[in-house]
């Protein structure tokens, strides 16, 4: 727990427990975002977010234009899907995502004129952004536009954004928190966005603030990114937006922990930030909101970090959503032969994959190629009950006990120890000297609990 208190907020800029893994951001932190040329193929899974999948609106051999709607969300908690390129639909077929899900996808072959390079950058993040949200724009209207643009959380969780940003009479939102922590090691996509396109974030924040009718808008950045903090502070000077620097610590970017660190509020177990009057979105999501509402453009592109000791030239890339991992990696010089593991997302919570045809989805914030030196491979030994997992668990759980309960399928104990509150951050596994894969066990335990509740 930090000793200091934040200037404008009740929190201390930190939360209890957590870890400090090596940041490894130096591979890509200082590299400006490059615009990736239009790839050979685009694969758009019909479910890229938490919630219901969408229905395909296109058929094989149909021509699509850049930004055209190709999938329609089913139900409220779902997101629309748009083609990032002009081209031809090849097929609607099955595919597997890095997280192991089998699902339908639209395969598109880019053909004809495309926006490239600087023009694409200007279309997505560049150019001028308004510094205020016109008073005539109604909250619900913004939420509708966000929904139409298919925006989901770009920080990794991929929860449909219009659900979080819609005005709600029952749960008043006091504070709109914009998450620029990027607490996972290696990743620098959000950092580059904050440094290179702060105005897109700021405009988006003003519109999102209107949508939620929040009293206060605050952008939260970890203190290992002084440049981003400085730029955002400078650019937000004449606006209502505040910028707050929080302690660099994993998992500072977790919703519940950032709320604790800044506002000193605890989101109830199983609850949502809105239960304590907070709505939180990632900086890239907010920039996408700005683009959707101001420029009328759907979510079709995002910045990812391709990095790690296993890739020849790490880069921050602006890519069309749906580009394959293989093409993105190839654009970064390809893999070195030492590469042994590929991770979509951060090293703490990301998914390992081996399928080079898997696409970058809306929630993919990075691709990390790791070598043998980076990953853990030791054999598991018995738990020595050292309590380190307890000392680091940011949810203040007892991971060793949860893992045992999961192993022996002891659901009453699992529930007594609040197993469902675990959000699989991986801190416990990171520190365990016996190399026990606690998260994996707990994950299996959570699946058991969910299965038993369904019955």
């Amino acid at each position: 727990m930090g000793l200091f208190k934040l200037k404008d907020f009740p929190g201390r800029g930190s939360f209890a427990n957590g870890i400090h893994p090596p940041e490894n951001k130096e591979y890509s932190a200082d590299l400006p975002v490059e615009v990736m040329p239009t790839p050979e193929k685009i694969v758009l899974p019909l479910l890229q977010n938490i919630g219901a999948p969408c229905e395909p609106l296109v058929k094989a051999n149909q021509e699509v234009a850049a930004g055209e709607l190709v999938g329609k969300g089913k139900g409220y908690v779902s997101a629309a899907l748009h083609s990032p390129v002009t081209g031809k639909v090849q097929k609607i077929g099955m595919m597997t995502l890095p997280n192991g899900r089998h699902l339908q996808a639209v395969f598109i072959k880019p053909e004809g004129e495309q926006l490239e390079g600087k023009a694409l950058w200007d279309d997505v993040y560049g150019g001028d952004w308004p510094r205020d949200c016109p008073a005539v724009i109604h909250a619900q209207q913004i939420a509708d536009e966000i929904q139409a643009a298919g925006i989901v959380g770009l920080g990794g969780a991929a929860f449909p954004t219009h659900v979080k940003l819609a005005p709600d009479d029952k749960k008043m939102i006091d504070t709109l928190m914009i998450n620029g922590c990027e607490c996972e090691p290696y990743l620098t996509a959000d950092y580059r966005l904050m440094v290179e396109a702060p105005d897109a974030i700021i405009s988006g924040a003003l519109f999102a603030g209107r949508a939620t009718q929040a009293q206060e808008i605050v952008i939260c950045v970890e203190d290992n990114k002084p440049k981003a903090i400085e730029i955002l502070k400078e650019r937000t000077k004449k606006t209502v937006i505040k910028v707050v620097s929080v302690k660099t610590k994993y998992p500072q970017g977790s919703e519940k922990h950032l709320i604790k660190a800044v506002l000193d509020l605890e989101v109830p177990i199983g609850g949502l930030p809105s239960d304590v009057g907070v709505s939180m979105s990632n900086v890239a999501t907010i920039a996408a909101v700005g683009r959707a509402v101001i420029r009328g453009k759907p979510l079709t592109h995002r910045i990812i970090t391709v990095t790690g000791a296993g890739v020849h030239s790490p880069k921050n890339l602006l890519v069309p959503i749906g580009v394959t991992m293989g093409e993105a990696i190839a654009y970064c010089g390809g893999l070195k032969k030492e590469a042994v593991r590929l991770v979509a997302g951060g090293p703490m919570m990301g998914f390992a994959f081996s399928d080079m045809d898997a696409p970058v989805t809306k929630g993919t914030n990075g691709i990390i190629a790791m070598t043998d030196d980076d990953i853990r491979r030791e054999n598991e030994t018995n738990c020595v009950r050292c309590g380190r997992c307890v000392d680091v668990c940011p949810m203040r759980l007892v991971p060793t006990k949860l893992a045992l309960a999961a192993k022996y399928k002891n659901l009453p104990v699992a529930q007594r120890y609040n197993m469902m509150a675990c959000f699989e951050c991986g801190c416990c596994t990171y520190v365990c000297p016996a190399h026990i894969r606690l998260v994996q066990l707990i994950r299996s335990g959570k699946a058991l609990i969910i299965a038993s509740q369904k019955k």
Partner: protein
Amino acid sequence: MNETSLENIKDIPAGEDKPLIHVAPSPHIASTSATTTRMMADVLIALFPIMCMSVYLFKWHAVRQIAVCLGCCMAAEALFAAMRGRRATLADCSAAVTGIILGLSLPASAPWYIGAIASFVAIGIGKVVFGGLGMNIFNPAMVGRAFVMISFANLMGASAYEQPGLGIDAMTGATPLTALKQAGSMVPLNDMFWGLTNGSVGETSALLCLIGGIYLCIRKTACWEIPAGIIISVLVLAGIADLAGPCSGYLVLHHFLGGALLFGAFFIATDPVTSPVTPKGRFVFGVGIGFLVMIIRLFSGYPEGVMFAVLLMNALAPLINRWTIPKTLGED
């Protein structure tokens, strides 16, 4: 779309060899500072000055105790592992740590077979029957010591420490705590601080126990809550006894510096396997040990109580864990 991936990696410029990609669940990185082996190695480092002191004080008697216990514990570990058809887990050094701590907790005069028996009991009954490292309830070294203490009372009791015949200066008189208990006489605090007094081989120097212990706490190999709990409760209880008795100020420090208290607080009670896992639990555990130590020292026939206090609290550790489940974030 189902052609598998590894083939496709060929298409990517990746040097000559095709990288072999394997998948595994997150997290993909691990702390390099924490391994079971490294923790045990830390304990050995922290014990080193204490071993040197014991050799200086008790000459080859100390060497014998440590060597016999170390050798027998490792042999026992290898033997029992072989009997259970497991790979021997000597590499994690935990048997070595048990051996050295056991050796350091014996009187210098105890014959070699005491150490040997204690070692086999420590590893066999203290650890292996429970299922090996991590599964045991009681501190193995203390199980071994308790066994020989009860079985060979005359070789392990107060008289074992008074052996002028051995030619060791420190062993001409009683141990500080025995002297206090039986004769009410006082050993100079200074000697107890530096460790020039009689006692079990490794417990005499309060200073070296503190240095080694603080090293362990800084390295986070031992937690600080347990020693803190023990020391605080001993100081409080001894303080009360002191106020009640005539020897103002002296008794507190005597109990603090004397006997196995500091050695036990930092090296024995902090054994992670047999202590609680929650921070609050560890403190409660420490306070409990300190309390029991003082009860035994003040009211029982034994001059010293660390061993029994640790064993008793070991038995309570699972319960303490249960009482001290931390409050989950967001729990009301």
